[in-house]
């Protein structure tokens, strides 16, 4: 009977393709929006991802994210270094600044000061220049996306100068890192230079980043730091989630994306449910004849489930391909740099689509299940 079910389904080309494209569109809508949402949320933590060497972040107790924190006194660094289980700890500065572009416009930037001695905190992928170039006077490295914004026509950054908070800054290279949630341009410089670029009070160190000693659990070490210093210390993954949670709770992004995902589900249910119902209504005589001939309600259910799974597989496959093509096609642009298609999202969308299609199929088939076979004689 599954074969007959598929022949019935594929024979009605208009409804068959309508069902497949309905599911594909729904999959695209849900998958694409969920992917954009996830990647945007991950940008909230891109400052943490960029510092791969550190597994503990120490900050002011009131800090909520990498871009929402209060400065620490310089003594905090030595206090953290003194906590048992800490292998090393270095200062890390993240502050906002402004830069005057070649056209004379002001651009808001994020200045990241990395450890003078080790350059811990500098992204690992250097696109132009060398790490040691950062030891030059007033040297900065700029992220590739930000560089494109400030110098849209330049192909090389090395040797270019600009005004950063009214001070001369010399670009010595470019680094590859994902944009943060709040800033479009990121400048990396040594911590001591950053203190010069960023005006402020005597407390300007925003973070101490640290590494747990071998054999130590970073989460336990973080707790120990908190107990001994009174500062807030977060293991790296926990800090990622804190950053995501901060952006999610302080913006309307989850709500807006949630509405779109919900719309995707509603559109999917509406298209699939309506088309499936029409398909079954058009074939009600045939289903009735099958029931009279000797196909049980269980057999009819199997037929409809076969049809549901078939269109779900094809529709989801097509929708997933569209989603992947969209993400692949846009991930090279500055707006979507670093965006990827998480397998977990597409697995979740698959479950959602299959449940949606099977439920609408079962809803549509109710009429057939209730149909008395004698109806075919009337």
């Amino acid at each position, binding site marked *: 009977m599954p074969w*007959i079910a598929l022949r019935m389904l594929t024979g009605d080309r208009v409804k068959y393709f309508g069902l497949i494209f309905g599911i594909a569109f729904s999959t695209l809508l849900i998958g694409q929006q969920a992917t954009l949402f996830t990647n945007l949320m991950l940008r909230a933590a891109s400052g943490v991802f960029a510092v791969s060497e550190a597994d503990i972040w120490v900050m002011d107790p009131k800090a909520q994210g990498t871009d929402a924190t209060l400065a620490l006194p310089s003594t905090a660094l030595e206090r953290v270094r003194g906590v048992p289980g800490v292998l090393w700890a270095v200062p890390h500065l993240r502050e906002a600044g402004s830069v005057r572009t070649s056209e004379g416009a002001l651009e808001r930037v994020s200045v990241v000061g990395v450890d003078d001695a080790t350059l811990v905190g500098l992204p690992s992928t250097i696109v132009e220049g060398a790490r040691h170039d950062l030891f030059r006077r007033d040297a900065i490295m700029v992220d590739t996306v930000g560089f494109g914004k400030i110098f849209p026509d330049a192909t090389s950054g090395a040797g270019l100068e600009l005004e950063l908070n009214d001070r001369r800054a010399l670009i010595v290279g470019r680094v590859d890192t994902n944009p943060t949630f709040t800033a479009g341009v990121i400048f990396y410089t040594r911590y001591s230079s950053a203190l010069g670029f960023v005006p402020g009070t005597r407390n300007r160190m925003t973070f101490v980043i640290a590494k747990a000693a071998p054999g130590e659990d970073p989460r336990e070490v973080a707790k120990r730091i908190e107990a001994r210093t009174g500062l807030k210390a977060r293991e790296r993954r926990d800090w990622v989630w804190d950053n995501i949670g901060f952006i999610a709770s302080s913006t309307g992004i989850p709500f807006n994306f949630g509405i779109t995902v919900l719309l995707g589900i509603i559109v999917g249910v509406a298209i699939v449910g309506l088309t499936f119902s029409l398909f079954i209504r058009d074939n009600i005589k045939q289903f009735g*004849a099958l029931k009279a001939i000797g196909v049980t309600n269980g057999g009819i259910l199997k037929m409809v489930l076969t049809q549901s799974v078939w269109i779900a597989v094809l529709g989801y496959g097509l929708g997933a391909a569209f989603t992947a093509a969209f993400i692949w096609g846009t991930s090279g642009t500055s707006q979507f740099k670093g965006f990827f298609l998480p397998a977990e999202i597409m697995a979740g969308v698959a479950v959602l689509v299959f449940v949606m299609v099977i439920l609408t199929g079962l809803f549509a088939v109710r009429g057939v299940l209730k149909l008395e076979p004698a109806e075919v004689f009337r």
Partner: protein
Amino acid sequence: MSAPAPGTRGQTEIAQPAIRIEGITKSFGSGDTRVEVLRGISADIEAGRLTYLVGESGSGKTTLISIIAGILFPDAGRVSLFGTDIYDLSRNDLVRFRLKNIGFIFQQYNLLPTLTAAQNAAVPLIAAGMKRSEAVARGAAVLERLGLGTQANRLPRQLSGGQQQRVAIARALVHEPRLVVCDEPTAALDAASGRRVMELLKDVALGADRAVLIVTHDNRIFSLADRIIGMEDGRITHDGAEAPQEANP
């Protein structure tokens, strides 16, 4: 109500009753809208004979054939097909019984439009679990017997009404059922096609242990019947080899 003794048309050998119906009543609706459609019908129908159920619209003939075919439960009474009280069976057993023992021919054919003629003919065998290729081959073989061998791979929409009806007959016969029930099988056909279809049905569907029961009001084919049961207002009012007078204008 009991039917009068059945008549015969050129039959020298009296077949055993294939269908025994006793005291069948059926009504639809309730309260003020309740309509009593069958009022205590009883009859024996023998194998090996072409039996017609005739009557005006609303006389109850379609309801009766539905009950005999096991697709509509009566309010009261018994239906025995080849010795099996079908309404004593569980619902699933009744479905299996139908699948094995009954062939259906519908007025509008109810062929699956996306299956070829041979595939349509094979549906009861596929439903019974037979391998598809084998079932379709048997469907094609039945179509060959019915003179449609060259049309086996055509879709219903590519066939004439008479050809579609022959595909429906092939579907009703492919699993060699013991009872074939037909609802107005010639209603959508011209006189010549209708007669050809009925002659074909008589040739291939009847057997010593097989019965064919036809609901019709098509007096063009009355002469082919071995027995004609007339119904009026939920009762049997005629039973004989000839059609009731009012059915022959």
